[in-house]
């Protein structure tokens, strides 16, 4: 197995406050994960705000540097990519998808300028017609065409369409890894599933691996192969997605699952605060607990 991405013993501390009231925040503590380049997969990071899921993704993208530990993409650390050319090479392999499609595009500029920039600088298209054919190809992968998008401004497209354009843009350099941070949380419910299924189709048809960051267990269940559940910087449960979500073992994972609202609860008057005592007790032990392997391949911090 050749490793696409290897995250080993990565921690990230932030220092907050001024000189007098300085405090440390452990955003990510000792995270380990790896993606193989042989088989594409959707790897989901689940967590609430403050869980460190976004910090982890930012470190993989090279927007932050780990305090300790090692992140290697195709064997190379981000800190080793010092020149602009090296960074561009990295962008050809890894692309982000942002949370808010309306913020991803400059509202005063046409959306296709990002597509053209990617086609020219990342894909290396030499002529305008070559760039256009590359862009059209990428847009077709997401169910759009250049004709629908060319010359449009962000407000002329729906959130779902914009997110598709953003994904198409990310696909232009044929990356092997997409990092999607809450890609559907700002998209309307009726359009949301089409984006989620699109990510799955990209994995199946084009062999793109996706790191899918979300707080939504339901969409994670729908598309993920593997997942990690993070609690305040710690990975508390990791492994195959559906077995974990069907029967979470760690108390915090159970708390998360119990808190998910569903339309099947209609009229059951099931609005009772979830029991936090077990989760709180497990959190007390989190510093000394270790990740233990289970038969179905999952790891639980106990």
């Amino acid at each position: 197995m050749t490793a696409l991405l290897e995250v080993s013993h990565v921690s990230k501390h932030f220092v907050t406050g001024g000189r007098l009231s300085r405090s440390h925040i452990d955003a990510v503590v000792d995270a380990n994960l790896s993606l193989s380049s042989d088989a594409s997969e959707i790897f989901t990071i689940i967590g609430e705000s403050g869980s460190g899921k976004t910090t982890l993704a930012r470190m993989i993208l090279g927007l932050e540097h780990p305090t300790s530990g090692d992140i290697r993409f195709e064997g190379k650390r981000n800190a080793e990519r010092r020149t602009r050319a090296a960074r561009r090479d990295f962008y050809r392999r890894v692309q982000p998808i942002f949370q808010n499609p309306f913020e991803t595009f400059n509202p005063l500029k046409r959306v296709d300028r990002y597509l053209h920039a990617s086609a020219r600088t990342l894909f290396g298209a030499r002529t305008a017609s070559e760039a256009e054919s590359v862009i059209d190809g990428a847009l077709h992968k997401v169910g759009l065409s250049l004709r629908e998008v060319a010359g449009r401004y962000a407000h002329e497209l729906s959130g779902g369409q914009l997110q598709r354009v953003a994904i198409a843009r990310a696909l232009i350099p044929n990356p092997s890894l997409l990092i999607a941070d809450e890609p559907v949380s700002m998209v309307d419910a009726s359009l949301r599933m089409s984006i989620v299924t699109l990510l799955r189709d990209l994995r199946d048809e084009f062999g793109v691996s996706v790191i899918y960051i979300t707080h939504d267990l339901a969409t994670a269940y729908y598309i993920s192969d593997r997942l990690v559940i993070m609690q305040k910087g710690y990975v508390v449960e990791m492994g195959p997605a559906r077995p974990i979500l069907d029967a979470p073992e760690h108390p915090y994972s159970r708390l998360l699952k119990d808190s998910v609202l569903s339309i099947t609860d209609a009229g059951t008057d099931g609005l009772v605060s979830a029991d936090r005592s077990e989760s709180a007790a497990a959190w007390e032990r989190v510093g000394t607990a270790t990740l233990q392997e289970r038969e179905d391949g999952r790891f639980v911090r106990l």
Partner: protein
Amino acid sequence: MTENVLTVTSLKAYYRMSYFGVDREVRAVDDVTLSVRKNEVYGIAGESSSGKTTLIKTFASAIRPPLKIVGGSMTYHFENGDIDPYAAPQAKVDALRWSHLSYIMQGSMSLLNPVRRVRRTFEDFAFRPMGLPRSEFWGRVESHLQRLDLSPNVLSAYPHQLSGGMRQRVTIALATVCQPEFVIADEPTTALDVVVQKDVLAMIRDVQRQMGSSVVFVTHDMSVHANIADRIGIMYAGRLVEEGPTRTLLAAPRHPYTAHLVASLPRIGDTTPKVALEGRPPNLAEPPTGCRFHPRCPLAIEKCTTDVPPLEPVGLDHRSACWRSAEVRPLTRIGHQELEVAG
């Protein structure tokens, strides 16, 4: 027949703008008729540009240009008499605020002053509407907090010392301290984490039961509606397209849009393929003719493109605005516990 606390008849609220010769009319709320009953949670569901935010702005009588009421009427039936906020004098409308009509907002920080203790914010908002002597006022506030399982200590905290969930609970306490008859909740749990969200929803539900007041609850999240609302109204492109009791509406929707909305929700343990609605939400500046949903509707016929379907009863307490409402079938079966359908 249960009593209504708010009746809205053919309400139209448009944004009218003119910028350097570009005139724009956005029909954010177009011909909405509904009523909110006493002692119920009325959920308003809709996606972006459905007009739900504008609708509750008109409920809150928080209308500022370029938004204008173009037609229709709106009447509150409070204990001290009926009032149309758009016909009554401003002083009378202001007197309603907080004591009869209050709000729970999405961002708790927009209500809590960050540089003042929570106690001061309570004083600013509730002291005058309640009209009690100071000692009695604080006694009332503290007993209200206790009833909501909040320690009176939160009063002496600054907002930043409280967690996000706690802040939102404090704003709920603040909004309900005067025992208002009508509470508008605008996406109060959208920015919260799932675990906290459930607590906050439970709290809203409890306080509503205790006070016997009416809550209009706005969110785009159908699973939140399923858990908190007694009745749901579905907004699409400025119109109310379906309205009904929560379980009936979710289990047996009679409008194709609702059917899609319900069917597109993923659930843990459910791996069936999801059908996403194609197309985009309409531009309210140039809405489609006839039924505004017809460009995206799988059931659309010739008539839908020309004639606007009226919101008509299709069952007990259940109304739908669709020419083919009889043919709408639920696209997904809701869950293991078969929901029995009223009517």
